[in-house]
């Protein structure tokens, strides 16, 4: 129910405010009514047929870097 997945925007229909997104191999039509300034190749979070938000590539990198840093084994163990 609450699942939402990141998908890549493949094409946008400005007229209807709809977009085709790719979820891995699968293509899906979704609504862009809840988001702004979406461009082709952006990643958006998809939930019940709508894009909820854009996924920030910069922030994703920072989070991955944070994992790597937290996982560094500095001391005894």
């Amino acid at each position, binding site marked *: 129910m609450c699942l939402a997945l990141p998908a890549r925007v493949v094409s946008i229909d400005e007229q209807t405010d709809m977009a085709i997104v790719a979820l891995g191999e699968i293509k899906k039509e979704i609504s862009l009514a809840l988001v702004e300034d979406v461009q082709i190749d952006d990643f958006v979070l998809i939930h019940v047929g709508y894009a909820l938000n854009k996924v*920030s590539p910069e922030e994703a990198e920072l989070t991955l870097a944070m994992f790597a840093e*937290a996982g560094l084994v500095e001391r005894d163990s």
Partner: protein
Amino acid sequence: MRYVEEFRSQDLALKLARTIKRECDPDRQYNLMEFCGGHTHAIFRFGVQDLLPENLRFVHGPGCPVCVLPIGRIDNAIHLATEHGVILCTYGDMMRVPASGRKSLLKVKAEGGDVRMVYSTLDALKIARENPHREVVFFAIGFETTTPPTAVAIKQAQAEGLKNFSVFCNHVLTPAAIQNILESPEVREMGPVTIDGFFGPSHVSSIIGSRPYEFFSEEFQKPVVIAGFEPLDVMQSALMLIRQINEGRHEVENEYTRVVSREGNLKAQALVAEVMELRRSFEWRGLGLVPYSALQINSAYETFDAEKRFEIPAIQASDVKGCECPRILRGVKKPTDCQLFGTVCTPENPMGSCMVSSEGACAAYWSYGRFRH
């Protein structure tokens, strides 16, 4: 898939697990509640608990929208289909939830009721367009994530002049429920549950932002970390909570910055505010009446409100005897504490709502964790 696989790396998970173990104080207990069913599901699916020390316990909260909807509201939806003869549209997860007399929307459908499963509110609008001589009601449920799509549908119906479309609104609000878990009088009756910190929901927060939790963490002096849904997100967030607890801090931190900002999605918030307003109080399964915890359609859009269009009585229905969902939803009991768990009640034949949705605690225990406990 991008933004999924990188956040499931096993190698990193093991390293993070080691760090968590090192930083957990062996002399204290860390009870961390994940409010959201999506986290419960991820924790079980990826076996996150197995990687973490014994004194760190996940407490599964009430954040599964299917699980918290009271039976009476499902009875109402059933009546709409059977007595008012509407086309009732709803999300798939609602179909199998047992209502009074062990009825469910799926059974109603099998008996000839016109119940249709939709993937999106746009599908419900399409059904209304295609059936101009029938009343079409969208049975709307869900937290802040699922509310904006309902608001969009109502605005769209108005723009198109769709006269046969209405919404039976059951949208609920996360911050009100989290607060209720800590302060309501029932907490005393059900026995104490100590929660040391909260994982904030991922996708709800993408809409409402991290700001609404600030009051809560200050008021209750509990740390909140907004966490993504992937296993590494959950582990990193657990580490951030542990650090706050160890240092005696209680702040709102955000691990899921790739999607969640402090302000949230302002466009979605504005759409919801235009179409809906707060209900003075709403019944939650497991929590009882929670003040200002749900939304209803406001007077400007009341022609699309099924509660105005049809007679929808308040129904007091009780849960199946023996079902511990209310206590489980509060984190007071575990699914395995329920006598019906796995014997009478299974995902194929659910007795209570926590067993229906894969995000429910009982279903998650059954599907992934039953051998552990």
